[in-house]
């Protein structure tokens, strides 16, 4: 099994992750970090780092019932639970801008 590497960052008290392949760059953004992705940008309070994520499980029904937010999956990375976002549809409040990238 290939171990996916995720860029893990924190925002709003939650740990988020995005596939490393989606990440294009970083920039400062109002006290935080603006992560430039292939298809947009997301805002991070703090970037934890690139961490391996062996398992990325899809959100179950119960979770979807109580948190109807689109996410690619959930993973436990470095002892923390990370919500892996879909770079094309990040959760609201995380990525207000979507821009066309080089690979769009």
């Amino acid at each position, binding site marked *: 099994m290939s171990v996916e590497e995720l860029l893990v960052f924190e925002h709003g008290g939650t740990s988020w992750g995005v596939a490393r392949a989606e990440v294009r760059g970083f920039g400062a953004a109002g006290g935080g970090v603006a992560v430039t992705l292939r298809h947009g940008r997301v805002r991070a309070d703090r970037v934890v780092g690139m961490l391996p994520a062996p398992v990325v499980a899809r959100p*179950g029904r*119960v979770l979807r*019932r*109580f*948190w109807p*937010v689109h996410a690619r999956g959930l993973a436990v990375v470095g002892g923390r639970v990370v919500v892996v976002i879909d770079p094309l549809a990040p959760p*609201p409040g995380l990525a207000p801008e979507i821009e066309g990238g080089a690979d769009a």
Partner: protein
Amino acid sequence: MTTASGEGGIRCLLVRAGEYRCAVPLNQVRRVVASLATHPLPNAAPELLGLAEFGGEPLPVLELARLVGAPEGAASPHPVTVVAWAGPPRERELVGLAADQALSIVEVPVGSLAGGQAGLVSGEALVDGAPVRVLNLEHLGAA
């Protein structure tokens, strides 16, 4: 309903959620652990406390007292998280139910359930002279 029953009763894990005593059938309980730390999710329903890590797996944790609509009770010195199977048998998934206290293992007599419902609380029974809400987590994932 598949039950872990004794002699004419359903063996349940008795917990306290708020002021209610809730019984979770043992066959739906995976583990009882000390209260797990949760990481909240933005825009989540109030019942969803957040995600916890259990056995290397992400575990959504729900507040049982909210789920059953229990009035707020006394603060517990030993809150627990009941790791249980929720959802229909073929699509069950692990969820955490945050309870104020794990009391004991009880046997709820079959047929003593009153007020049978198709929701989370399948009914109410008397255990040791006090009412207990018997849960059925198969319907937890249902909308």
